[in-house]
């Protein structure tokens, strides 16, 4: 991966039109006296993994909830493919093609993979569930994402490992022709190999042209998978930089103090 290819102005990264997939302009959100978000400007591009980092209380969760339609921002506007979007509920976001993979995954252990992936949006034929169509679509989606470690799509989710569950949750989000997938701490509870598996999957989503917004505390993960890195601090955006112009130490400086006097060592290329 060439980090330079991820710079915002690169034309093939920004689909056919010049406008980014999602643009946030001056987003602000307060809860009483608490300014959770202040004047956030951010572009999210198709085919790019954007990492969103920040200390606890920096406003990461509020920001993704604004995009997912759970909160509506008090100020500013959200542009989806260049046109203003009003996201009043998660349904509105889903309708645009925004899917969120929550930290607790929201999977039903007692249902199988197919049933979980289609939960709430089952296909029906002749007044009965169209299991065959759903099974085929689920199999194709998992296959397309190269999730090959599951033995059968009719396995109960209870029998899956943490990484597999995360993969199913991600596949569920991708199934709906989504254009932007938001992931909240996708590797938080995973071991080394499982983390690797999920990060590879995240990378493949971006390579397929989806935009990925990944919230993470884990600097290892962030620097392994992200094209650009956004740092929030106390509800304000302190930096949006390509990965090449950042290293974990700078990121931590920015997260904690809002500034960093360090410069990137040129040898630091983990791609």
């Amino acid at each position, binding site marked *: 991966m060439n980090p330079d290819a991820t710079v915002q102005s690169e034309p093939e990264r920004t689909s056919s039109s010049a406008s980014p997939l999602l643009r946030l302009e001056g987003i602000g959100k307060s809860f009483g006296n608490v300014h959770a978000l202040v004047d956030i400007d951010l572009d999210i591009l198709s085919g790019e993994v954007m990492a969103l980092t920040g200390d606890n209380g920096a406003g990461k969760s509020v920001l993704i909830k604004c995009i997912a339609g759970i909160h509506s921002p008090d100020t500013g506007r959200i542009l989806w493919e260049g046109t203003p979007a009003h996201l009043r509920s*998660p*349904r509105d976001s889903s309708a645009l093609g925004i899917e969120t993979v*929550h930290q*607790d*995954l*929201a*999977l*039903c*252990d*007692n*249902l199988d993979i197919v*049933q979980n992936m289609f*939960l*709430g*949006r*089952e296909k*029906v034929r002749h*007044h*009965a*569930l169209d299991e*065959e169509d759903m*099974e*085929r679509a689920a*199999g194709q989606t998992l296959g397309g994402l190269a999730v090959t470690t599951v*033995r*059968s*799509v*009719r*396995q109960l989710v209870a*029998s899956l490992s943490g990484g597999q569950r995360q993969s199913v949750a991600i596949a569920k989000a991708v199934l709906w022709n989504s254009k932007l997938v938001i992931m909240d701490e996708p590797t938080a509870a995973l071991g080394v190999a499982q983390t690797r598996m999920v990060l590879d999957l995240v990378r493949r989503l971006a390579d397929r042209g989806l935009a990925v917004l990944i919230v993470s505390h884990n600097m290892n993960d962030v620097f392994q998978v992200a094209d650009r890195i956004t740092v929030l601090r106390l509800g304000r955006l302190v930096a949006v930089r390509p990965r090449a112009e950042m290293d974990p130490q700078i990121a931590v400086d920015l997260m904690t103090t809002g500034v960093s006097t360090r410069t990137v060592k040129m040898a630091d290329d983990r791609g």
Partner: protein
Amino acid sequence: MTAVDEPEPAAVDHELVEAAVAETEVTEPPEAVAETLRDYTRVVYVRIKSGDSGVLPVVGGLLLISILFQWLNPNFLTAGNIVNLLIQGAPYMLLAMGEIFALLLGEIDLSIGFVSGIGGVVTAELVKESTGWPWWAAILAGLVVCALIGLLQGTIITRFGLPSFVVTLAGLLGWQGVMLLILGQGGSQPINDDVINNITSGNLTPAGSWLAMIAIVAAFGARTWFREARRRASGLVAPPAVVTVIKIAASAVAGIILVIICNTDRGRLVPIQGVPWVVLLVLAVLTAWTFLLGRTRFGRYVYAIGGNAEAARRAGINLSRIRTMCFMLSSFTAGIAGIVTASRLRSVSTSLEGGTLVLYAVAAAVIGGTSLFGGRGKAIHAVLGGLVIAAIDNGMGLQGYSAAAKYVVTALVLLAAVTIDAVARRNAAR
């Protein structure tokens, strides 16, 4: 009876084994695509070992109970007694099928014993000579009243966020009071309507029994064959063709044995032959609820809520609506059970033990393999569990044991069923 999803489940003893095993395979395909019968057997074995034993324990238990009682009393497995047992067990099976809707949500419905009583009382009061409603209108009214009771209780539970245990406990007390009010203290109301009484005492003719059995098995067989052949053709998870054939053959054998037993003359003074109507009724309810739970969105949402209510909510499912509907269906099915009970006693009376009935219904569902914690269970579990409870009741009755002994044995069977399930599950978790 249209397309049947299950092979004759109300059949007895050994034929149940095959029928029930076949049933497991219909809805829970093994975790790998097995090409041959040998592969398939191995996969099923692995699944059983991993704690997913389906209906095997209850079928095994039923076999064991049958052998034990037959050994104690050679009258147990006579045609007359087996048919009698099916009729005795029908109210338990129906009540338990209602209770399953609550259990699948991880809730409980304690009221259905007396709700079934209300269903019987409403029907009996409307069909009596002085009121003079036709039988079908009386039955319909009884069922509608029960469904409305369920709607009321479900609405209270979901609207105010109250525990179902408390609301339906109030139902248990309250509906008993209403029953006493209608019938008067110590009162009863005889039923003289032939159609209602024939639900449990009437039979199909022997020829009719064969025809019904052939129709049901043919419908089940055709449906199973075409569905699984289509799945195999499009490369989806499906058992090998041999297994499909065995499954259909097993349901045919079960059906034939059931009809042979029912067509044996069991009368003392006049010949009595044929499959009792109530067996068909139980099969019809079983088919309907199996379809509803297994093949519709509503059913899928019930399982989802029982498994992870938060996930269901985020998937956009209207939890209150599904929950309320479950309590409605629970009470509605209880209404059917109440009418069957009234039909068997040819009357309704205040001596109905609604509290014991509901606990038997919960026990039947759990013995059959339904989880008390929600998300796991099927209508067939209620039928098999109800059969176990009826068999204990009947077998110990034949031996002349007291009610006390029956309660204790039923309690032990319930404990055994839950323990087997819990141990199997813990082994799977390791």
